[in-house]
């Protein structure tokens, strides 16, 4: 019979625990939906309601003249939702797992990572709607779509870096969650989700351009909405943000993870 080895190093040390991540995610799914398959559908209710609301706001209040506006909006809202849900949950992922962390050793990074995967699992259902509705909303099929998984992977890596950062910081600053929630609310309006970047004035454009999410949205809109390849500058800037987030997150985790336990 195979037993876990004590001396695994590097990546193997994390890989050995892959079933822990799987079990943690399965636990969260079960606890959240109590095994009811219908409950899973509720996770769709939120993005759908948001899309209807924003559609109303942007077409009737702000008057957007983008063609296939709903498609533009759906792409933006769904991808922004992934960000906002992952980020809001990340704050409490380590502090919420205090009971585990104080009793047994396992790579601590797996806790926030499992949380992100849980968010992703719910989000996949939402993205399935997009796939089904894609042709009806005016989406075009083109070879560039094959790049979408890569773009998504980049985005997830960026989010992962932030999730790690916030989960560590929240141990020290327990009210971080409230700040993050406010930031997530503001960021929505500073990201080209319901509006087109080119319609902005120079001042607001400068602020919006500085938002890392803007570049990711541009990439998703190019691929899924305009049916073109994303501009190289967007890809380069998004990659730079991803690298920065990953560096910060893993650096903080390395520095702090061991000492965190007694602060919980």
């Amino acid at each position, binding site marked *: 019979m195979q037993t876990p080895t004590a001396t695994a190093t590097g990546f193997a040390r994390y890989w050995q625990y892959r079933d822990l991540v799987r*079990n943690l995610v399965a636990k969260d799914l079960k*606890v959240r939906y109590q095994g009811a398959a219908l409950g899973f559908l509720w996770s769709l209710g939120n993005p759908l309601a948001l899309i209807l609301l924003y559609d109303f706001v942007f077409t009737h209040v702000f008057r957007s003249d983008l063609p296939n506006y709903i498609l533009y909006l759906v792409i933006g809202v769904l991808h922004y939702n992934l960000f906002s849900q992952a980020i809001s949950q990340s704050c409490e992922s380590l502090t919420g797992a205090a*009971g585990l962390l104080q009793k047994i050793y396992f790579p601590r990074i797996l806790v926030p990572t499992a949380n992100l995967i849980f968010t992703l699992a719910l989000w996949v259902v939402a993205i399935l709607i997009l796939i089904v509705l894609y042709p009806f909303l005016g989406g075009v099929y083109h070879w560039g779509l094959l790049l979408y998984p890569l773009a998504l992977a980049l985005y997830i890596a960026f989010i992962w870096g932030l999730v790690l950062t916030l989960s560590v910081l929240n141990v020290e600053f327990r009210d971080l969650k409230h700040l993050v929630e406010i930031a997530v609310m503001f960021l929505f309006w500073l990201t080209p989700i319901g509006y087109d970047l080119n319609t902005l004035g120079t001042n607001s454009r400068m602020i919006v351009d500085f938002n890392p999410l803007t570049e990711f949205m541009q990439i998703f809109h190019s691929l899924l909405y305009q049916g073109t390849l994303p501009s190289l500058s967007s890809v380069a800037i998004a990659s730079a943000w991803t690298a920065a987030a990953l560096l910060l997150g893993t650096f903080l985790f390395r520095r702090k993870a061991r000492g965190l336990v007694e602060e919980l």
Partner: protein
Amino acid sequence: MPPAVLVEHVRKEFILRHNRAMGLKTRFLALFHKSKRERREHFLALDDVNLRVERGEALGLLGHNGSGKSTLLQIIAGILEPTRGRVTTHGRIAPLIQLGVGFHPELSGYENIFLNASLYGFRNRDTQKRVKGIIEFSELQHFIDTPLKNYSSGMQMRLGFSVAVHLQPDILLADEILAVGDQPFQEKCHERIAELRAQGMTLILVSHSTQQVQRFCDKFVRLEYGRLVETGDVKKNSPDATELSINEEG
């Protein structure tokens, strides 16, 4: 052969925070209000502790409440970092600081077995091979598909203990967990521990009962306010079960 556990000059300081500033808001207020500022105090939980446990040996860890026994186990298990000093271990460690770590009340006993085992680094398919033995040992066949919240506390401990002793660790760190369940089950647990010991498992046992240490351990140490004050061999077949022989080792 290197020892299973080697603890060298381990020191552990905790920071006791009075008036702990938990968030950004209180920290900000503290800039203006002196009374809101946090005061820190260093607390020495372990002071220059040295230990050597050979493979297959069993060590009893005695000491009053707050003497640092659990802290020492947490450091050996890698949960806490020592402030100074070093811990080297050989073999797979299963810390039993608490039974049933990670058990979730909404999951069934069966699902909790897998979750708990994976915390110890087990793949689900390896747990699968043991799950029958675990359930049998816990004698909870009828309840195994019931959510854990409907278990009595003794039943939860039974399940936790069964998982732990079926994971075949090389080193078991047991923190006051040998009083599980009712009398017959306790007997069964003790037998199982003895069986694992016979197979060569190293054991560090924290206990307040000298009888327990007498029964399971070859050696014992006593902690007092974070210092090792007594080291000795357990005299087997002693007429008085409460007596441990003492060899001062420097």
